[in-house]
Structure formats: C-alpha cells, structure tokens
C-alpha cells in the first residue's frame, strides 16, 4: 500500500483528493470555515470577515452575523486543500438554486453564492450559482419528500420548503403529563422528534448521527435569551436545574 502523493500540479482542480479531502484551485476569493484548511501551495492569504478590504464582498455574499466569527476569506492564487475531522467531503454545484445545510458541515463556498441564515436554528442557506464543499459523517444520501428525518442525521435540503417539527403522540403525552419529564422515569427512545419534509425537492442525509457540536445550537439559544423577560428566565432556570438533577441521578 503506497500513500497517494501529489504536488502542486497533480493536485486535482476543484475536485476531491480522496474521499476525505478536497482541493480548491483558488484564483480569487473563496469563503471558508475557520480551521478547515490543512495545506496549500501558492500565495494564499486568510482574512477574517471583519477585515476592511473585504467589506464589499461580505456585504454582498455573507448575511449571517451569528456565524461571521466562524468564517474567513481565502484569497490569492494556488491550490488549497480542505478537510474536516476525517469526515467524507463532497462538492456540490448550484445553478440558480437554493440549498440549506447544517452550519457546521459547510466547509467552503464560491462568492457566486450568497449565504443566509436559515429559519431552522443551526442551518445556513446558500442561494445563487456556484460550487460549495460540505462534510458528512459517512456518505450522503439523497431522498425525496414526503419524509421524516432524524434531526441529527439531517444534513440539509434543496428546493423544498423548510421542514416542520413532528412529535410522536407518546412524547406529547409525556410533555403534558410532566410527571415523566420531572422524574425522568419512563425514559424515551430518543426518536420522538423528527423533521417533517413535504413538497418538491431533495433532502440530504448523512448515515450517522454525529454532528459538529452543540455550540451552534447553544449560540442560537443564547441569542434568543434577550427576548425573554425575568419571569421567563426564572422558569428557564427551573427547567435547567431539573434537567441537571435528572442527569446527575441518571
């Protein structure tokens, strides 16, 4: 077994190097998520989105203050190799399309695409024409609605309306009765909540339930805390205390 070896000219141009890494033939600018660059040839600079000269680009293509901190712009000329935690990496082309994807799984995209925050927390929407690179834990599966998907296995969706939440009846009963929630007795299967897709389009799934981390969800929650009054905060605190006690006993 020999290790595949590449040099600056044999590295693929805007294509996968192997299943786990992708080579961008950079000539201009690309948006990339922080820390996903593993190597590069040529003259490439990495700038935070807050860099002054990037103002016009960011204003035109990046509409997500919540995630601006996680993104950079790579600019210059050369080959840029991207990878993410040893996950499968794939590139997709959009042609006047729209696609929504889990924020942590989007590695990079061309400035031909516009990035916006999805209504579903933790997801980002790309609109326009161009190429983007995304990571998935295990291969990506394309399925068509109507379908219900486990939130952790959901990678994204294209062309179809945003999903809605679906809860199983037994879960609802538990929520109404509260007894189960408070005592933690009775347990749960972990599968009472799904995303429900209807309409025309494609749903992208990964074959595992490993997601980046809870950080994105947490940031979303924190962002919404500002809208809650004192009474709400106290209630939240109660809920959190109950959950923590239950976790400790479990």
């Amino acid at each position: 077994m020999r290790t595949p070896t590449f040099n600056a000219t044999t590295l693929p141009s805007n294509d996968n190097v192997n299943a786990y890494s992708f080579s961008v033939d950079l000539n201009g600018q690309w948006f990339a998520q922080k820390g996903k660059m593993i190597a590069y040839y040529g003259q490439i600079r990495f700038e935070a989105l807050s860099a002054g000269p990037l103002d016009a680009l960011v204003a035109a293509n990046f509409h997500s203050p919540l995630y601006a901190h996680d993104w950079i712009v790579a600019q210059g000329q050369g080959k840029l190799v991207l990878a993410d935690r040893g996950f499968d990496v794939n590139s997709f082309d959009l042609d006047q399309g729209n696609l929504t994807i889990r924020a942590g799984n989007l590695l990079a995209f061309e400035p031909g695409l516009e990035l916006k925050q999805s209504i579903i927390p933790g997801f980002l929407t790309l609109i326009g024409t161009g190429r983007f690179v995304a990571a998935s834990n295990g291969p990506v599966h394309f399925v068509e609605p109507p379908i219900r998907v486990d939130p952790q296995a959901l990678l994204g969706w294209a062309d179809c309306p945003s999903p809605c939440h679906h809860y199983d009846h037994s879960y609802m009963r538990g929520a109404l009765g509260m007894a189960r929630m408070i005592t933690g007795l009775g347990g749960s299967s972990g599968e009472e909540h799904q995303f429900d897709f209807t309409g025309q389009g494609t749903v992208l799934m990964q074959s595992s339930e490993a997601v980046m981390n809870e950080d994105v969800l947490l940031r979303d929650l924190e962002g919404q805390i500002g809208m809650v009054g004192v009474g709400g905060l106290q209630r939240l605190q109660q809920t959190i205390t109950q959950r923590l006690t239950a976790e400790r006993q479990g």
Partner: protein
Amino acid sequence: MLAVDLAGETIRALNGSMVAYDGQMAFKRQGMTGGEGLRGALKRRIAGEGMTLMEVTGQGTVFLASEATEVTLVQLNGDTLFVESESLLALDGDLKTGVHFVGLRGMGTGQGLATTKVEGHGVAAILSHGPAIGLEVTPQTPLCVDPHAYVGHLGQLQQDVVTDVNWRTVLGQGSGESVQFRYQGHGLVYVQPAEREGILEI
C-alpha cells in the same frame, strides 16, 4: 490495521498495539533506553518526546492497530523521516530512531519542542486520523500546512513557522489560520484530513 509477516526478523512496534497474531511471536518491552543508548534516552526524557516501543520477533503474522486510525507506510532508503512519537506505529528492526529538536515549532500544537526522527533503510508505519496524503515540495512550490493536520515529513526540507498574527488576532477576530508551517526544499510532507486538538487555539 497493519499486518506484518515475520520470518525470524525483529520489528519495533508501539507498546500495546498488537491486536492479534498467528505463528510464534515473542514480545519484549524495550529497556529504559529504548534502543537509543543512554544518551538518546536522556535526550528523550528532557525533550518530553515520550515513546514506548516493544520488540516483536518470530515466525508468522502479527496484526497491529491503534485506536482505529489509518496506517501509512513510508519506505526509507537512507532518508530521514520526521514524525511525532505519538504517530509512530511500527518500524523495521534496522531503522534507527532519535530525538530531533525543532524549537518553537511544536509550541502551538501542544507537541512540545521535539519530534522523533527515523533513519536508515526499511519501512516505517505511521498513524493518521483518516488516510494521509503526501504532498511534494520542490524549490518552486513551497508548501504551507496547518500544524494540526501535519503528520510527518521526509527529505531535505527546511521548516519554518509563518505567522499572520495581527491586531485582529489579539481581539479574537483572527482568521483561524494564523500559524502555519512552511516547507521549502525537496521532500514530501504527510498531512491528515483532520485537525488534532492543540493546547493553544490560534
């Protein structure tokens, strides 16, 4: 997982990396000095580049693995391979190991001030998180690598740290790629498709 066929030879492998074998095998933990002599052992201790290898001798096949990571084989023909001690799985018996001081380089990645060098003729097996790829370096095409994705390198390479630290980095608005290793010269650099956790996040 790595399968090694042995016919009386000796190899050196990471302590505890054997998962199965058939035939007759003898496993021997290497002594205090790890085959590097008293001076070598002392150097290793000072550098904190800890490495515990065992000697495997026998007839048959031995299977080696460590935490389900990928194994890359590197053929050495008198060259020197530089690799982190934690990434080394097994070595041909004829290969010599030693400690190489790299100075500042390891600071940001939590790998200390030293790295392990392997030299001689034979095959070395190195571990990577995800399959490693080799990237060639020539004088015309220097290569920059993320310290967290670096696995090892081979050949006549000059290594320096490129920093792009500015006032934005200090404010916590850095580009996340502020520190890179740049390689110049002739050689091959191995990178893995994942970034290991460092002590210092820059």
